[in-house]
Structures are given as structure tokens and as C-alpha cells.
């Protein structure tokens, strides 16, 4: 599903990522961890084409994202739901409009939008807030709008960048359960997170970024994963 070959990313003098080789299978659930500034967001941004790798090759569903023509990019993104670390919501618009955006863009029929949007808002605990302006929401509420927008069209891949950073413990668990449920329906899920507690509660394969390189940990046994340096299969 997702294949990175010798991918590196340099910003001026800084190496954000170095010789990253990662394969993620269809339907996998993977954590991306690492300290602040380790390159987690950069890694995810390359997967939805917001950033081009400086070196290496990057395939999603067999498509070379680096070589993708500009006018094909939207069609890639329709299959990739993204929860951005800074939400990227339209603050002046209503909650419902923000979530509907993903469906409108693919030309979904009006009545499907009217059905799906409240359902998914209900799922993230924002029932009845459809008509509130996003700017008026609390930090955690905005984060949940971002989550709702990313999952509303059942994407093939879901990229979540710190999806629980602004949520309290109980809400974070709820969100992880939602992501888990989506994963069980076949969606490939990548979650960048700091929250060790959550990773322990939902043990999955972990990619740890350190010094621009990837350290791999597979939870063969429940409990905290063991990290190994080097490439993954």
C-alpha cells in the first residue's frame, strides 16, 4: 500500500528525514513516534503530497507520488483522509460545512451529505454542534471536527497527526477506538503520536523516528514494543 525507498528530506541545511525505507501493508495500523521535531509530520506530509521528498521514491497503491502530475493529486487525496496537527479547518464556516467539504469535493449527492455529516459528528461527540462556527469551538472540539472531516468519506488511507493532543484521556480513548474501528473495516491507518499510554493501550506496530532515521518496533507480544534499528520489510 505505502512504500518508501531511501526517502530523505532536507530543509536547507537540516536533514528532517534520512534514507527512510518503510513498507506499510494494506489494512495495517502503524504508530509514528519520536521526539518533537523528529520528522513525524514531515513523514505524513510526504504521503499526501504536501511535501516532496528530497531523495528517494515514494509509492502509494503503486502510484509514484513524487512523479504524480499536479492535476492527478486531488484524486490521490480523495482516498487519503488527513487529520492535520494544526487542524486546517475553515474557522469562519460552520462545523457541518467543514465536514461536508470532503464529500462535496467528490461530488457526493446532497442527501448522502445530509445523512453522513451528522452521523460522523455524533461519533466524535459533537452531536448538535453542526451549526456552530468552528472559531467558536474549544481546542478539543476543533480537533474532533478535523477527525470527522478526515473519516467522513471512508478513505482507503487515514493519516492522523497527533489526533489526541488536545483531548482529555477519556475522549482520547474514544477517538482511538474510532480509528481502530475504521482500521478493522480495512482502512490503512498511520497515527503520529506522543501518547505512550495510548500506544500501550492499543498496541500496534510502531515506527520510531530518531535523528531522521526509522527505528522499527513490532508488538509481537502485548505490552510496550521493542525497537530495532534498520529497515522494515
Amino acid at each position: 500500500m505505502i512504500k518508501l525507498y531511501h526517502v530523505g528530506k532536507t530543509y536547507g541545511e537540516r536533514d528532517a528525514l534520512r534514507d527512510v525505507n518503510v513498507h506499510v501493508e494494506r489494512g495495517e495500523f502503524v504508530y509514528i513516534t519520536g521526539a518533537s521535531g523528529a520528522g513525524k509530520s514531515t513523514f505524513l506530509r510526504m504521503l499526501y503530497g504536501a511535501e516532496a521528498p528530497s531523495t528517494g521514491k515514494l509509492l502509494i497503491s503503486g502510484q509514484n507520488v513524487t512523479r504524480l502530475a499536479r492535476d492527478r493529486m486531488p484524486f490521490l487525496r480523495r482516498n487519503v483522509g488527513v487529520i492535520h496537527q494544526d487542524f486546517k479547518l475553515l474557522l469562519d464556516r460552520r462545523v457541518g460545512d467543514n465536514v461536508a467539504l470532503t464529500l462535496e469535493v467528490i461530488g457526493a449527492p446532497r442527501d448522502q451529505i445530509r445523512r453522513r455529516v451528522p452521523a460522523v459528528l455524533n461519533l466524535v461527540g459533537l452531536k448538535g454542534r453542526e451549526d456552530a462556527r468552528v472559531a467558536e469551538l474549544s481546542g478539543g472540539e476543533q480537533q474532533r471536527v478535523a477527525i470527522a472531516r478526515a473519516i467522513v468519506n471512508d478513505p482507503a488511507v487515514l493519516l492522523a497527526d497527533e489526533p489526541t493532543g488536545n483531548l482529555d484521556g477519556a475522549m482520547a480513548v474514544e477517538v482511538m477506538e474510532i480509528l481502530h474501528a475504521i482500521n478493522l473495516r480495512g482502512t490503512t491507518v498511520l497515527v503520529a503520536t506522543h501518547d505512550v499510554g495510548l500506544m500501550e493501550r492499543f498496541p500496534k506496530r510502531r515506527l520510531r523516528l530518531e535523528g531522521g532515521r526509522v527505528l522499527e518496533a513490532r508488538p509481537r507480544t502485548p505490552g510496550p514494543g521493542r525497537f530495532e534499528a534498520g529497515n522494515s520489510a
Partner: protein
Amino acid sequence: MMHDLIRRTLRGLGEHPYVSVVSTAVITTSLMLVGAWALVTLQIEVILGAWQQDAHVSLWLKQDSTPEARAALVDRVKARPEVTEVTYVTEVEASTWLRAHMPELGPALDDLGETALPASVEVVLGADYATTETASSFAAELQADPSVTSVDHAADWVARAQAFLGLFRTIGIVFGVVVAAAALFLVANTVHLGVYARRDEVEIMRLVGATDSYIIAPFAAEGALQGAAGSVTAMLLLGGISHLLTRQAGEVFAAVMGQAELPFLPGVWLAGLTLLGISVGAVAHAISVYRFLGRVP
């Protein structure tokens, strides 16, 4: 699809009322400047036309030429394509005219009798031919006629008037180019600043998988609506100003142009200005959004 576009367009207008109002107002202002220029130019052209039609040539006849020769001359002049009007003025008529127009000459003319002035053929040249060159060559040709003493075509006056009007036309065209360029520039930049204020919208739309044309369409439609509203407002305002001006200065126009009604822009121009407003609004928005899209991956 269409329904969706309309909905998105109206939402865009409603969500940024300030930006929409400013863009529309700038389009209005710009079109008013262009329209005001067109209106002034039109008035000057009307005056020009009136003055040009006045250009005429006098053929002064030899006192000893025969009536037959004079009649032949009149016929020959009438046959020329440049000529719209020919009047034969006898010696008596000329004296009467002079006496009426320059009463102070009265005593002097009395001594001369009825035929103080020579007879003449007064020729009015069609507006198309009323240039200094045509009048001069026409005059030169008829100067050769045996019945003619001299030809007077007020070359100086025509040259002076035409130079003056030419100057006005030149200034007018330069001013028009400046105004049109300024108007286009202003609209383009205001629209661009407006889109700049909404750049996150463009970025987010692209992030959720919207195609470029899907993003541009409602902006262009919004621009077209603003252009339509702007041009209609501009023409109403111009019409109002023009009407007030006519009411306030009716006699002046009457004196200068022989008509009290200041003619307003003709229908074709109005339609043209509306079309201009709509397309400039739409194209400026489309280009601005396209430029922002270029910076979004």
C-alpha cells in the same frame, strides 16, 4: 453540479461580505472612470462633428464672368463628391449680407452702390472631406477656373480648430489609456488582495482533494456577479451625474452644441461596459486563485 456551484458562490459572497463589497465597489469605481471618460470623449466627438460640418469654401467670382460661365461652375461644383451644399450668392446678395452683418461699414458701402462685393459660390464640404488637405486641394483646383478670382477656404481657421481638437483627442486618448490601465490594475489588485485574505480556503480545499477548476469556479462566478453588480451601479451613477449635469447646465450645452440634452452612452457601449465588468471580475478572480494554487502543493 450547477446548483452546487450557485450554492458555493453565494456562500462565498455571504461569508466575506466586506471583501465582496470592496471588490464590487472597486469594479464600480473603475468602470465609472472608464465610463466617464467615454462619456466626455463622446461629447467632444459630437462637438467635433458639429464644427467639422461648418468647414466651407467660398469661390469669389470675377465681376466680368458671364452668367452661363457661373451656372456651369455651379454645376461642376455640385457634381463633386466632396460637396454637400452649393449656394450661388450674387453681388447684390453679398452686399446685403455685408450690410446686415457689419452695420458699421454702412456709410462706406453706401458710396459703392449695390455691387460693392463680388458674387461668390458658397460650398459646404461633407464632414468626411472637411480636412485641411481636402479643402486645400479642392480650392487649388477651382482656383484654375476662369470665372474665379480667388478661393477662400478659411484654411487657417480649419487648421487651428483641427489642431485644437486633435490636441483634445490626443489628451483624451492618453487619458483614456491611463484610466483604463489604472482601472484594470486596481481591479486586479483589489481582487488579488481579497483572494489573499481567503488563501487558507484555497489551501484547505486543495488538501481535501478538490481539483483546481472546482476551487476556481465559485471564485470566478463570484467575480462575474461582482462585475455585473459593479457595472450596473456604475452606469446608474454615471446616468445620474449626466442627468444632473444636463439639468444644471442645459443652456450652456444648448449654446455650445445646439441641443440641451447631453446625449448619454448608447446602448452598445452600455452593454459593452457590462460585459467588460463581468469578464474582468471573473478573469481577475480566476487568475488570482490560480496564482495562489501555484503555491499550494
